[in-house]
């Protein structure tokens, strides 16, 4: 019951969490008459005991300086990595250097975009029909499966707006050998593309007329067959 009284002035003494009082205001020759913890108002150096107290806390302060940002950044980084692996957070697309790119073990070749091949029927007012033509060559059986199970193609304009494939004009007659792109990418019969075989694909988009000029095409494919961590990756092709 005989603890020091924090609210009381000396002689009980300050509690341990406060810096110590300077030795004595009366005998102080350094000029700090106020008895404060730091240097006096006239800019003189703090008394030796205060300096030592501050110096003793430098390791703690440095540790906090490292630990507090780490305690924020590490969970952020771990969660971001988990979301990217799950595909909950879309992968940022790598812009293809030229018309070819490797993605998830397959070689993608962008052959260009065809505008207005509606088969005679007019597109809705203010819109254009755009077909993106690709040839994809899976490198092995695993790449074929990844293509069949996860490949998605979307159109992206300069402003970052994206369009999924349209089902309008799906009754058009396309060449027989064109593969499927609606639920994963496969051959004309919807089966996996055999390894080392080039498969032509046509992805069809209905976009506003003002978006046609700067249109790019993003291909997204899982890079892993793990159910909970498909790790999707994406490549963006531009005309």
């Amino acid at each position, binding site marked *: 019951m005989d603890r020091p009284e924090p609210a009381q002035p000396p002689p009980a003494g300050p509690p341990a969490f406060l810096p110590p009082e300077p030795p004595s205001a009366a005998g102080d020759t350094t000029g700090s008459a106020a008895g404060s913890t730091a240097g006096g108002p006239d800019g003189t150096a703090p008394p030796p005991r205060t300096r030592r107290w501050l110096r003793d806390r430098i390791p703690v302060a440095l540790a906090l300086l490292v630990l507090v940002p780490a305690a924020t950044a590490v969970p952020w980084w771990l969660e971001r990595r988990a979301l990217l692996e799950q595909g909950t957070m879309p992968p940022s697309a790598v812009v293809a250097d030229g018309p070819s790119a490797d993605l998830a073990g397959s070689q993608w070749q962008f052959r260009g975009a065809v505008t207005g091949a509606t088969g005679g029927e007019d597109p809705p007012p203010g819109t254009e029909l755009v077909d993106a033509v690709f040839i994809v060559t899976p490198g092995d059986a695993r790449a074929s499966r990844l293509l069949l199970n996860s490949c998605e193609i979307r159109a992206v304009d300069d402003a970052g707006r994206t369009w999924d494939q349209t089902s309008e004009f799906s009754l058009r007659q396309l060449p027989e050998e064109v593969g499927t792109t609606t639920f994963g990418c496969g051959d004309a019969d919807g089966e996996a593309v055999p390894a080392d075989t080039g498969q032509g694909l046509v992805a069809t988009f209905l976009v*506003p007329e003002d978006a046609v000029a700067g249109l790019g095409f993003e291909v997204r494919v899982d890079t892993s067959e793990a159910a909970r961590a498909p790790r999707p990756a994406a490549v963006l092709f531009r005309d």
Partner: protein
Amino acid sequence: MASPLLRRAATALASLLLLGGIVAAHAMRPAFEDATAPIGHRGSAHEPVDARRFTIEVEKVEFAHAVSDGDALGAGPRLTADPGNRAIWVVVWATMTATDASLTVPDPVLLETGSGYSYAASDRLSNALNAFGTRLDPGIPRHGAFAFEVPRERLTDPTLTVSAREGLDDRLSASAEVGLGLDADRIERLVDAAADSLAIEPVTYR
């Protein structure tokens, strides 16, 4: 100065208060579903309502005793409002446009009434804006209707609530709450003028 006993009591009380505060703060923590619920944007009919991920403009509200899918091949089955509870069809015509990505309109689309009841748009009309497969694309407005079967006496100050989302995930998607601006008089007049049957035309591009 205060006696040690009094100080201890004060410390204990402060600790209890802080503990109580922690428990209260924990209890107020929103559930995951609430924290990630669609983000609502309010507006009113006859003006575009910007829900950030999409815009919606309610253009017309019609009342009818029966609705049906109308299309080039002739009308689909007629859905008659239940006469038992004096129900009526409220058909809300609207134009929706996605802002930056292709979206779908998930069920339920709701008509919330001033009396606190919510009615889901009928999913039996394949021409409705909320029908399976209707898609909103950036820069391409789509015009269509939502149809609600509502008992007349519960039809006060209706508000349309529509959300739209990318893929299957509706966490933090966008939702618009559009006040239809129908007061009791206007509703009465619309009920009196209700059509016997109304054909819902397919969703069109605008």
